[in-house]
């Protein structure tokens, strides 16, 4: 109930700030040229269709989108179901078509099942942006994927983050999710590349906790007994890092010897960061992700952005973004930026 009230208040605030901000649109000293700066039409309606309406991560993204549209004098309608299914999202797409929305920003629950409905939306002139979880519809409809973080960047930045804390020296290990996980394996590939830059850091092994706390704990304990000289662990999964942090929290002697970092949720990691068990870890900021998606949607709908490789548009306080070329199954996309590093100085500001 509190959340409902919170959203209602946020909506009221957003509509107030539409009035407040409407005079400031069109300003903005764009550093990529006048063609893209200030070209956003007023009064645009963007449908945000998250995976569901309750997921805290998605709620933050939606709020980011609302902030973006408020800044450009438009509005966001958040519409989805309570379950993460395509069937729950299709009625929302239909509602967007019927309401003649300017754009849809969607986090797909299914890569393909939404395509026929999104195609209809596209044919009705609605611009499509995907965020968080891309859709894979072949060539149509044309859409822009807002990628939370570049795969290479995630891999390299985690190694850099650990290197800084262990003085670029010593044995390290990786605690991953499933051995078959596509995301994690891609990141680990880039970690290994990046490790070539640190000759004194040695990756001794990668263990797999299958994104299951019990399994993660077992393989972690095995890791610690097999490599007593271990200096650092990277866990590029929220389950792995939170399990390890919990173990370290009750074994302060280990925590004193070994640095833990990786990808984690601030809400899960807050107490471990505040009590010093973990110094820092990373994740992207979902609120910025939604903010960028909102600007991308508004810019596409205004014709001030396009899906052409290299085309650029301005995303408010985040600055300018360039459309990256399609590669593999991913179509045209923009990357939010480097992952956000969370430490004791900022972790209390995030609640996802």
């Amino acid at each position, binding site marked *: 109930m509190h959340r*409902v009230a919170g959203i209602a208040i946020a909506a009221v605030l957003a509509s107030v700030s539409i009035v407040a901000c409407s005079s400031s649109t069109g300003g903005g000293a764009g550093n990529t040229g006048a063609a893209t700066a200030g070209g956003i039409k007023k009064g645009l309606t963007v449908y945000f269709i998250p995976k*569901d*309406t*309750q997921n805290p991560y998605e709620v933050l993204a939606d709020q980011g989108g609302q902030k973006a549209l408020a800044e450009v004098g438009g509005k966001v*309608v*958040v*519409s*989805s*179901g*309570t*379950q993460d*299914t*395509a*069937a*729950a999202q*299709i*009625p*929302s797409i*239909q*509602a967007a*078509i*019927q*309401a003649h929305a300017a754009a849809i920003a969607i986090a797909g629950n*299914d*890569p*393909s*099942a*939404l*395509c*026929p*409905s999104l*195609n*209809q939306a596209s044919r009705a002139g609605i611009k499509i942006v995907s965020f968080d979880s891309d859709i*894979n519809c*072949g060539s149509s409809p044309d859409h822009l994927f807002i990628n939370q973080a570049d795969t290479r960047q995630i891999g390299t930045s985690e190694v850099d983050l650990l290197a800084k804390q262990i003085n670029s020296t010593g044995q390290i290990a990786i605690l991953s999710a499933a051995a078959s996980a596509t995301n994690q394996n891609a990141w680990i590939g880039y970690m290994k590349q990046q490790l070539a830059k640190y000759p004194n850091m040695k990756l001794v092994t990668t263990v797999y906790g299958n994104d299951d706390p019990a399994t993660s704990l077992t393989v972690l304990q095995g890791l610690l007994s097999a490599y007593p000289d271990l200096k650092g662990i990277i866990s590029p999964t929220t389950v792995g890092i939170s399990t390890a942090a919990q173990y370290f929290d009750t074994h302060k002697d280990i925590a004193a010897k070994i640095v833990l970092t990786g990808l984690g949720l601030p809400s899960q990691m807050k107490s471990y960061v505040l009590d010093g068990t973990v110094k820092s870890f990373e994740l992207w900021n979902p609120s910025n992700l939604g903010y960028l998606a909102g600007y991308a949607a508004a810019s596409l709908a205004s014709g001030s952005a396009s899906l052409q490789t290299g085309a650029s548009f301005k995303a408010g306080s985040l600055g300018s973004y360039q459309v990256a070329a399609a590669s593999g*199954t991913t179509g045209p996309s923009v990357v939010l930026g480097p992952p956000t590093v969370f430490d004791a100085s900022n972790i209390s500001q995030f609640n996802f």
Partner: protein
Amino acid sequence: MTSDMATRARHSPGDEGTDTAGRRARWRSAARWEVGLVVVLIGVLVFGAGESSTFVDPTTFFYLGINIGYIAIMALPMTLIVMTGEIDLSVASMLGLSGSVLGVLWHHGWSFVPAVVVALLVGALGGALNGILVAKAGLPSIAVTIGTLTLFRGLAEILLGSLTVPAAGDRQFPAALTNIGVAPIPGTQLSYTTVIFLVLAVVCGVVLHATPLGRAMHAVGLQPEAAQFSGIRVRRIKFWLYVVSGVVCAFAGMLLTLQNSSVSYSAGTGLELNVVAIVLFGGVSIFGGRGTVVGVVLSVAIFGALQMALTQLNVQPEIQNIITGALLLISVVVPNGGEAIGRLRERIKRK
């Protein structure tokens, strides 16, 4: 429980003297429920038209058909099964399993028609498994079909895993058929699934209300023992109803696959509850023996229109769930309310 049995006995079809009178009474109560449904439907339509600026748009009817057509189709065999006093909670999992069978065969280069035939056969086999366990082995249908709910979905997950078919490099499903997801029947706003549902509903209604088989289903639901003694082949009827349910749900799985131009193992997860809700709200008694197909069709229209209106108005989905749940409770409480109050009064008196 005893007074419940007494109520059922009052409507016993085996009792020649009161048979016609009993049936007339049943018809009257059913008709009252349907009149109520018509009133609710009109209420929903007036509400939608008054509150939402896009509700009167002709595309609303097409979208409504797209969203609820394949669910409504599964509600028809469910109606017959609930009439006989049983339930089938595996319907949505069967929809997902058959879609996954079609998907995996398509992925491996099969042509469309043979893949569909195999998927429908899987539906028949799955239904037969339910039928054997419920009708032949006499196990409680709620437990059996919760088991097959999990089993069928598990098999679908094994078949497709993380794959969404067509995957990269696969052929697309035939465009002429996937068109049912984006275009209504030419010259109308009817989705193909709506028309298929209406045709099947007529067939189902004729069977249930105008044939000896339909009368037998009523009898099985009202008093299984009496039905058995009067020569009705209770077990055989139940067995074949489950087979029909399996095939129809598999067919709904084909339709959903075409509508979405794709399939993943999770298609239709959780829809069994929507199907049960539609059937019960349509006035089919959860105890069996009472209900009409007309009521179920009205119930489909109400659920579909309500969902359209609430989504267009951007009512929070949590509140939509609450409204659906409240409607379902009303549908169980109102028809059984008289009996429940009577039982309660008796208990108080005894104290």
